[in-house]
């Protein structure tokens, strides 16, 4: 990781695949590209096998476009849909065993701190609701209790999508799924409440409908994790297959869910709030100068 690894050795550039060269010439490495320019530069995410019109795939796209320092970031994923795209980007990706992501991320974050004590290296877990709140529940919660400094992002499609539609702890009460034909009998797990109780310093619940806001919270979550402690984003990323949403209506569904039960929530400790105020003030001043 680091900018030096992205630049090809002298004389080699002309032999590299076009997509790689485009990434060097028109990619976001080493500069801050606002998420609003998506579609106007070479994004670090490549082609991947996630389904057509998948809102989780969309979230992964925005996620990579929002990282404050992609060249110094390691992404950890696991079994589940998101890793199909997460692993197809020009950012180091580690496949944590299912349920183990937050244990892997804990060790990695500590190791990076020892190896690069004077540099910022960001670790971000992106995994499904099953991976983080069911099978990985204890690893997730304990990483928060231990105040491990990395970001956890739960891409919540309210089902085990990758394995064909089993009910998850995050499925809403009453919902009928292919492998939960009688309807779910229990409430959705209050993940953000658990995160706050367990000691996360920055917690967000969001339905990705407003790209600027998504980018802002991803950046904030990564920066707060660098300096203060665990951070958590709970994102609604529907499964159009298991929930039978026509692909062209996936955004409409997200907007409806946002109004109904996925309204934007952002929590942070006082310390984190002061930090954001300070850096965002500095950014504004720098912009004004330009």
């Amino acid at each position, binding site marked *: 990781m680091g900018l030096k690894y992205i630049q090809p050795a002298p004389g080699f550039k002309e032999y590299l695949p076009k997509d790689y060269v485009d990434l060097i010439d028109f990619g976001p490495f080493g500069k801050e590209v606002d998420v609003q320019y998506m579609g106007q530069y*070479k*994004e670090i995410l*490549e082609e991947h096998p996630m389904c*057509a*019109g998948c809102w989780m795939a969309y979230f992964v796209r925005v996620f990579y*476009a929002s990282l404050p320092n992609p060249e110094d970031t390691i992404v950890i994923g696991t079994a589940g849909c998101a890793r199909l795209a997460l692993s197809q980007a020009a950012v180091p990706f580690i496949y944590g065993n299912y349920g183990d992501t937050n244990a892997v991320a804990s060790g990695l974050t500590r190791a990076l701190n020892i190896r690069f004590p004077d540099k910022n290296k960001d670790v971000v877990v992106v995994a499904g609701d099953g991976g983080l709140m069911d099978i990985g529940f204890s690893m997730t919660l304990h990483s928060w209790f231990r105040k491990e400094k990395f970001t956890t992002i739960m891409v919540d499609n309210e089902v085990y999508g990758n394995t064909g539609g089993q009910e998850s702890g995050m499925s809403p009460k009453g919902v009928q799924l292919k492998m939960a034909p009688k309807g779910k009998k229990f409430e959705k797990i209050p993940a953000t409440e658990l995160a706050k109780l367990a000691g996360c310093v920055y917690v967000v619940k969001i339905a990705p409908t407003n790209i600027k806001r998504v980018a802002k919270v991803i950046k904030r979550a990564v920066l707060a994790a660098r300096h203060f402690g665990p951070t958590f984003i709970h994102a609604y990323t529907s499964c159009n297959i298991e929930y039978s949403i026509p692909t062209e209506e*996936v955004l409409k569904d997200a907007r409806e869910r946002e109004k109904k039960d996925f309204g934007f929530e952002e929590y942070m400790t006082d310390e984190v709030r002061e930090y954001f105020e300070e850096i965002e003030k500095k950014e504004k001043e720098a912009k004004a100068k330009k």
Partner: protein
Amino acid sequence: MYYVARVDEEKCATYKCKQCTLFCPEANTLMFDDDRNTAWVNEPRCKGCALCVYVCSDLLKRDCIEMVMVTAED
């Protein structure tokens, strides 16, 4: 045969809104060309979901994108 999105570039250039490029789930697919002022689709990467049509037609009422069938030769 593939089902892909196609932009009416002349019409799109009258708006220059770039909104569709922010909602395509695929990266490096629905692009904006600054010189010609229009969105355009990198067709081999398009998965045919029609989300961009929803944004352009249903939300913005601009109707600049339509879904078309293309064959490998196109």
